[in-house]
C-alpha cells in the first residue's frame, strides 16, 4: 500500500520534472490547467501591475483587478520563516512583506530570518513542539514531502487552481508538488548547473570550448601540460563532487537509469551509467584533473573560487548562483575572465540515441510551504503574500539585479548577464531538469550518497562499492516508508 505511494511519488515527481509542457495529462495536470489561464494573465499584465504599485493613491492595492481571494479585515498575525539573513536577499524579501502589510494593514507578518546552516534543525524543533511557523521556506524534494506527510505543509492545490499566481515554469510547479498536490510556492530562483571557465586561460592556451567528453578530456590534458589544474572542485561538503557524478550519469543514460535506481525496481546504482560515471571520475582524479586534497577543500570558505581567482585552475562545474557570488566578489574580474559552457555531451551514448539534454539543477530554488492548521482565512492571506508580493514585478526586478532568474515564464528572455544568459538558455532547452540528488533522494539516502562522493573522489571505494552502498540505503528507505 505504502510502496505504491512511494512509486506514485517517484512517478509524479519524475513526470512533473519534465520541462516540456505536459499539458493537462497525468499527475500535476489539474494545476497546469489552472496556471495556463490565470498565470499568463499575470505575466501579460506585468507592466500594468507595476504602474499600479507606483501610483499608490487612496486605498489602491497591488492586487486590485487580480483574481485573488478577498482577505479578512480582522486582525491577523502570520509568522514567516525565511533564511534571508544577509544582503541583498534580506532587503528584497523584507520589502515584499512591507508592500503586503501596506496593502493589508490589518495583517501583521512577523518575518523571521533563520540562519541557513541550522535551519532544518530549527524547523524540527519548532514542529515537534507544535510551534510550526505559518509559512516557511523549503527546498522541495525529500524534506518537503516529510513535512507534508507529518501534517505541517498544507495542500494548496485548490487555491492554486482557482486564483491568480505568476506563470511559474512547469518544472518549478512540479518541484513544489508532492503526490499530485501543490504544496510549495516558488519564490527563489532557478539554478542551472554548468561549467564556469576562465576564458583568458583558454585563450592563452589556445583551447576551445569542449562539446563532447572526449574534447573535455583533451582540454584537461592540455591544461595539465600547462601546469594548470583543470577543475576547481572543493568537495568537503560532497554535494559539489556529486555534480560531476550526476552529469556523467545523465549524459550516459538520460534519466532512465537514475529513475530505475530510485525505485530499485529492476534498476540499481551499480548499473552501467553509474559505473561509467564513477570510473570516469576516478580516472580523472588519478590524472590530476582535480586539485590535490579535493576532499578537504570547502566551497563555503571559497576555496574553489580561490583556485579560479589565483589562476591555478581553469574550470568549475557549479550551480548558477556562483555567477552572482563571483560578481559580488569582483565584478571587474568576473566580466574579464569568466564564461560558461554546458556540460559536454557523451558522443557514444548520443550515437545510441540517449538524450543529451537532461540537465542538473533546481527549478524551484526556494519555496514557501504553509502550515495554517486549518485556518482558511490565514491560508488565503499567505497565498496572496506568496504569489502577489513575493514574485511581484518589484521583487523579480531586484532578483534579476542580483543575477537570480525567477522561476517564472518570460524572465529568461530578460537576462542580460552573458553567463546567466547561457545558463538560462541551457536550462530552458533541457528536456528534463534533474533535481540535485542530495535534495531529491530521501534524507537517509542523501547522507549515504554524500559519503559515497567523498569516497569516490578520495579513491577509497570504487563505483561498484558506492553503488551497492546507495542501493542498500535506497532499499531501506523504501522499506521504511511501508
Amino acid at each position, binding site marked *: 500500500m505504502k510502496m505504491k505511494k512511494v512509486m506514485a511519488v517517484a512517478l509524479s515527481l519524475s513526470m512533473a520534472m519534465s520541462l516540456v509542457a505536459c499539458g493537462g495529462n497525468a499527475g500535476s495536470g489539474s494545476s497546469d490547467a489552472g496556471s495556463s489561464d490565470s498565470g499568463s494573465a499575470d505575466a501579460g499584465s506585468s507592466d500594468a501591475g507595476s504602474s499600479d504599485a507606483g501610483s499608490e493613491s487612496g486605498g489602491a492595492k497591488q492586487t486590485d483587478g487580480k483574481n485573488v481571494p478577498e482577505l479578512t479585515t480582522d486582525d491577523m498575525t502570520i509568522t514567516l520563516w525565511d533564511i534571508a539573513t544577509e544582503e541583498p536577499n534580506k532587503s528584497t524579501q523584507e520589502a515584499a512583506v512591507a508592500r503586503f502589510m501596506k496593502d493589508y494593514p490589518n495583517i501583521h507578518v512577523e518575518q523571521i530570518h533563520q540562519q541557513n546552516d541550522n535551519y532544518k534543525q530549527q524547523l524540527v524543533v519548532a514542529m515537534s513542539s507544535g510551534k510550526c511557523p505559518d509559512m516557511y521556506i523549503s527546498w522541495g524534494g525529500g524534506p518537503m514531502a516529510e513535512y507534508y506527510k507529518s501534517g505541517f505543509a498544507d495542500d494548496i492545490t485548490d487555491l492554486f487552481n482557482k486564483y491568480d499566481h505568476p506563470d511559474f515554469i512547469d518544472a518549478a510547479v512540479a518541484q513544489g508538488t508532492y503526490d499530485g498536490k501543490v504544496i510549495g510556492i516558488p519564490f527563489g530562483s532557478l539554478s542551472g548547473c554548468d561549467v564556469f571557465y576562465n576564458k583568458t586561460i583558454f585563450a592563452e592556451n589556445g583551447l576551445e570550448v569542449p562539446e563532447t567528453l572526449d574534447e573535455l578530456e583533451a582540454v584537461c590534458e592540455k591544461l595539465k601540460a600547462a601546469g594548470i589544474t583543470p577543475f576547481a572542485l572543493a568537495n568537503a*561538503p560532497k554535494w559539489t563532487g556529486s555534480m560531476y557524478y550526476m552529469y556523467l550519469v545523465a549524459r550516459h543514460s538520460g534519466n532512465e537509469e537514475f529513475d530505475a535506481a530510485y525505485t530499485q525496481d529492476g534498476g540499481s546504482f551499480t548499473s552501467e551509467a553509474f559505473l561509467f560515471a564513477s570510473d570516469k571520475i576516478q580516472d580523472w582524479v588519478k590524472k590530476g584533473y582535480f586539485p590535490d586534497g579535493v*576532499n*578537504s577543500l570547502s566551497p563555503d570558505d571559497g576555496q574553489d573560487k580561490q583556485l579560479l581567482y589565483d589562476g591555478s585552475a581553469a574550470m568549475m562545474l557549479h550551480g548558477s548562483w556562483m555567477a552572482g557570488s563571483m560578481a559580488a566578489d569582483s565584478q571587474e574580474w568576473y566580466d574579464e575572465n569568466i564564461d560558461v559552457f554546458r556540460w559536454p555531451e557523451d558522443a557514444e551514448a548520443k550515437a545510441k540515441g540517449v538524450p543529451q539534454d537532461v540537465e542538473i539543477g533546481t527549478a524551484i530554488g526556494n519555496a514557501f510551504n504553509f502550515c495554517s492548521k486549518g485556518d482558511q482565512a490565514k491560508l488565503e492571506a499567505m497565498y496572496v503574500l506568496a504569489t502577489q508580493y513575493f514574485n511581484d514585478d518589484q521583487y523579480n526586478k531586484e532578483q534579476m539585479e542580483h543575477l537570480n532568474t525567477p522561476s517564472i515564464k518570460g524572465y529568461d528572455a530578460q537576462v542580460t548577464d552573458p553567463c546567466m544568459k547561457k545558463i538560462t538558455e541551457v536550462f530552458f532547452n533541457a528536456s528534463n531538469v534533474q533535481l540535485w540528488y542530495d535534495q531529491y533522494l530521501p534524507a537517509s539516502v542523501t547522507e549515504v550518497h554524500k*559519503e559515497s562522493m567523498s569516497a569516490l573522489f578520495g579513491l577509497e571505494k570504487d563505483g561498484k562499492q558506492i553503488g551497492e552502498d546507495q542501493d542498500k540505503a535506497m532499499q531501506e528507505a523504501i522499506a521504511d516508508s511501508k
Partner: protein
Amino acid sequence: MATKNDNFSSLANIRKKRIRLAATVFLLPTFLLIAVYFIYPVIDTFVISTYKWNGISADRTFVGIQNWVTLLHDKLFWSAFGRNVIIMVFSIILQIPLGLFLATFLEQGGKKYNFLKVIWFLPYLMSSVAIAFLFTYALATNGGIFSSLASLFAGKKVTVDLLGRSPHALFTVIGVMAWQYTPFYMVYFLAGYGNIDPAVYEAAILDGATRRQYTRYIAIPLLGPIFKTACTMSLIGSLKYFDLIWNMTQGGPVNSTELMATYMYKLSFQQFNMGYGSCVAAGMFILITVIALLFQKVFVVKEDY
C-alpha cells in the same frame, strides 16, 4: 557510663541531622535546575528511543527495543565511538601534559612571562567557527601553511593533504583540538598552583629547597585532585565532542571524523530519524557516564590533606 554514651549518640545524631539539613539547603538550587534542564530531557530521550519517529509528526510508532538492537549492531555508531575513544586518549595525553608544562613554566618564570600567559591563552578565547575557518585555510592543499612550508623545504610544489584523507583527518582534528583546549588546562593548573597553601611553600624554602625543587617534589604531587578532574573533563569533553568537528569536517571525508555526537545530530535533525537518533544519544549518554565513573574509581588520588 550509659548516659554518657547516649549523650554522645544523640549529639552525633543532632550533628548528622544538621549536616543533612545544611547539605540539602546548599544543594537545593542545583537539584532544581538539574531536574528541569537535565532529568526531563534525559528521560524523554530514553522514551523516544523506543519509538520509530521522524521527529515532527504527531504519530509515532512504538517499536520497543528495536532501535537498541539496531544500535548494538550499528557499525557506524561503534566506529564513531572508536574514534571518540581515540580522541579521548590523545586529548588526555596531549592537552594535559602540555597544559601542565605551560603552567609550570609560568609558575617558574614569574611575572615577566605574563605576556606569554595572555598569548598562550588566545586559542581558547576563539570560537569554534573562527578556529574551523582558520585551520581549514592553514591546512589547505592550496596555499595552506603546511603545504607552503613543505614546498619551501622540498624546493618544488608539494601538497600536504591533512584533512582530506581518512586516517590523517582524525589526527589533524585531534591536533586542532589540542591547540584549542591546551590553554584552558594551562589556566587550570595555574589555578591549582595558586590553590596550594603558601605555608607549604614557606616551609619548603625554609628547609632549603629551591623554587624548582619545590615545584617538582611538592607542588606537582599536590596537584593530584586537580589533575584528576582535568583528566575527567578532557575525557567527557572528547566523548561528546561536536562543535569544531561540525564546523570543520561535518564528519567527513568518508565518515573518517564522524563522532557519536555528529552521527546523532545528523540522524535526529537532518534525516528525520529522531527515534533512532535519540537511541544513539541515549547510548552515548550511557557509555560516557560509565566510562567517566569507571575512571573516577580506577584513578584514585590522595584527596585529603
